[in-house]
């Protein structure tokens, strides 16, 4: 063998769920049997980071640039014998690019990839997160060296300020200003905190970065610690993210061994170390003051922010807290300079943003695009459109604090300010695409239910207000809606957002406000006609099979968990209303649109 091939098997959560471990073992076994000079590397690519995890397990072969999808353990022998030994491409396992109407050799040829710009996700899928050498080869820790030995502490802070980087966790506060304020306060010790408590449902940007490129986060934190004079750092990670915790822990150990963490970093007089704190499963802990309270060993209740954390944060000391994606941007900015970063994006939103594009979209996954990219490009060009080419209804951005944006705003530029104007918000980057099978009242109910459970209970407007709103929406969804409900919802929304203590409460009514604004006809339909057009609210839904379109294929009958569908093959089927649990399996599986909502 003249050239050495490296096989990358994705070990992200999604691919692991699809059996990538077996694929890895099988490939390894086949290579061992043949006694080849090939190193099989595992690369931990996070779920969906390339958007291709639903087509996982993903196997990449370099330097040939071949990507295989939906690989099974039984394909391993063929991959080793054909592709690795002879360089032959196995057509069956390639990615089908719908716009080109053909299969492509590398995933990089797909529209999904070509339209993205990777900064925060630069190394994900390209390196083995368990191997610090991989990170170093890809410019890793060069920025730290530059910061420590070629820049003053003020230079570092002003580079970050000039770059225009804003917090990627949601609020979009300028990162440089945060660092500068913290630096200006003379009180030690100071702390650096990484918020990895990604609580927004439907968002997994931070998990992916911590799993796939943990050193970029660590390097960002070290640079900030040096700039503001901190000696101790904390990374707060959601307890549910076991792989992220494992990879971050491992990376911190490796960084210590290599002299990037610990005493006298790289021989300088600067010392800094990072500890990992596992979250306890409370959404409110993503709020900075609640998170700090949780690190201190208490319940994660927020406090009023009369005094900012940069002044009095962890244990009452000056603290810089940024989220994972923000940290991952820092080394690249230091390395490439603020001008480079500043040139990307819009006037007020610089750089790129990672979104988790999920829901009813074809190419589910993590996408990173320059700020200012339109929703249409994200959903249709990168996301490939709606599953089953159904009708697009709306997109929810910003998690429980954000809002739903309807079709007429599809050309909206995605940046901090435009989204706010449209009654949504950037949030951490969850982007949930909804089609005509999504009920917008139910979406509002979903978030209220979520928030009422996650409200910490400290302040009354949030604790009681959200509960009352949920009661009203439950009534609407279950057929007890009254005309005055809409006005009541609006009034309570106003109070909750005005009077709540922390960001969770203040933004809690957003999903209701935005759905009321853009989808009020659905609310009225629920209230006045007792009908849920999407067929989601069970009490208001009756399914039937249209006799003109049913071909009697029996697919719905096979998939019905309640045995409520009757009918003989090739004859029109019908639904027994008494048995039907209204789960919607039939409407989701029917290929002829024969199942309808009354």
């Amino acid at each position, binding site marked *: 063998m003249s050239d050495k091939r490296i096989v990358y098997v994705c070990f992200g*959560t*999604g691919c*692991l*769920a*699809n059996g990538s471990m077996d694929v890895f073992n099988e490939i390894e076994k086949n290579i061992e049997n043949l006694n080849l000079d090939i190193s099989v590397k595992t690369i931990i690519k996070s*779920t*969906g980071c390339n*958007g291709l*995890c*639903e087509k996982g397990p993903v196997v990449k072969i370099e330097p040939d640039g071949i990507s295989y999808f939906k690989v099974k353990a039984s394909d391993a022998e063929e991959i080793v014998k054909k592709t690795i030994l002879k360089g032959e491409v196995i057509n069956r396992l390639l990615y089908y690019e719908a716009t080109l109407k053909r299969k492509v050799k590398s995933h990089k040829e797909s529209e999904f990839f070509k339209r993205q710009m990777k900064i925060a996700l630069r190394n994900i899928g390209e390196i083995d997160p368990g191997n610090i050498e991989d990170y170093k080869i890809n410019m890793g820790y060069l920025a730290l060296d530059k910061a420590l030995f070629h820049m003053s502490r003020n230079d570092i802070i002003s580079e970050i300020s000039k770059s225009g980087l804003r917090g990627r966790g949601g609020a979009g506060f300028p990162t440089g200003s945060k660092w500068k304020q913290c630096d200006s306060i003379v009180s030690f010790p100071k702390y650096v905190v990484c918020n990895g408590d*990604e*609580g927004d*449902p*439907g*968002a*997994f940007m931070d*998990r*992916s970065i911590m799993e796939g490129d943990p050193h970029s986060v660590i390097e960002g934190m070290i640079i900030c610690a040096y700039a503001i004079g901190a000696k101790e750092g904390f990374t707060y990670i959601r*307890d*549910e993210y076991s792989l992220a915790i494992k990879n971050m822990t491992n990376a911190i150990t490796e960084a210590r061994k290599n002299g990037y963490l610990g005493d006298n970093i790289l021989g300088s007089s600067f010392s800094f170390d990072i500890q990992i*704190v*596992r*979250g*306890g*499963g*409370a*959404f409110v802990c993503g709020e900075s003051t609640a998170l700090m309270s*949780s690190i*201190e*060993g*208490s*319940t*994660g209740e927020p406090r009023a922010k009369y005094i900012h954390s940069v002044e009095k944060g962890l244990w009452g000391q000056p603290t810089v807290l940024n989220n994972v994606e923000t940290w991952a941007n820092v080394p690249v900015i230091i390395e490439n300079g603020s001008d480079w970063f500043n040139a990307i994006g819009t006037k007020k939103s610089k750089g790129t943003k990672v979104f*988790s594009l*999920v*829901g*009813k979209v074809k190419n*589910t*996954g993590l996408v990173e695009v320059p700020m200012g990219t339109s929703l249409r490009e994200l959903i249709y060009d990168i996301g490939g459109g709606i599953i089953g080419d159904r009708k697009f209804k709306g997109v*929810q951005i910003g*998690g429980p604090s954000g809002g739903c944006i309807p079709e007429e705003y599809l050309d909206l530029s995605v940046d901090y300010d435009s989204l706010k104007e449209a009654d949504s918000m950037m949030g951490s980057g*969850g982007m*949930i695409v*909804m089609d005509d099978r*999504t009920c917008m009242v139910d*979406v509002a109910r*979903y*978030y209220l239910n*979520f928030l009422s459970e*996650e409200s*910490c209970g400290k302040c009354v407007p949030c604790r009681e207000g959200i509960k009352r709103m949920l009661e009203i929406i439950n009534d609407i969804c279950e057929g007890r809606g009254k005309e005055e409900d809409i006005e009541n919802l609006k009034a309570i929304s106003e109070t909750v957002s005005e009077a709540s203590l922390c960001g969770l409460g203040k933004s809690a009514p957003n999903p209701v406000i935005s759905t009321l604004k853009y989808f009020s006809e659905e609310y009225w339909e629920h209230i006045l006609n007792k009908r849920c057009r999407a067929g989601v609210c069970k009490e208001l839904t009756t399914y039937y099979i249209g006799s003109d379109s049913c071909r009697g294929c029996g697919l719905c009958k*096979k*998939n*019905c*968990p309640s045995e409520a569908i009757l009918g003989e093959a090739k004859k029109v089927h019908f639904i027994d209303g008494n048995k039907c*649990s209204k*789960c*919607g*399996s039939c409407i*989701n599986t029917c290929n002829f649109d024969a199942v309808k909502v009354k």
Partner: protein
Amino acid sequence: MNTLNFNEIIEKYPKEKRYTLAILQDIQRNFKYIPKDAFTALSLYLNIPIIKLYSMATFYKALSLTPKGKNIITVCDGTACHVRSSSVLIDELQKYLQIKLGETTKDGIFTLQTVNCLGSCAIAPVMVINDKYYGKVTPSAIKKILKQYGGEEDE
């Protein structure tokens, strides 16, 4: 339960308040809940009133006061899973196991719970049993999956 066991877990940590959550999580992992005696032991060790520990145990979802079943079924109810009908899965599971969310079956074989998001939205709706992930789960697939864990046979 033997108190020595908690002490082994507790004493791995320095006597500082900041380790409270980590210690409680380790106990939860070992015992599948926080036994009453563990509160007393931890309270003495960290010199924190039991009421504070109890407050944490009820605040954080990762901690529970009652023992969980042998197999823990976690249905993801993140937004992406929700719009792909995770609530239907939850309904079907409740019906099949005859328990409500958060409860454990009488035989102690299954506990049913939800999680806000597992970040595996690409394979939504997701269900996890212990550590095994099941993606794109349909209502009709549930019975088959549960049987592998000693679920009731079909009558």
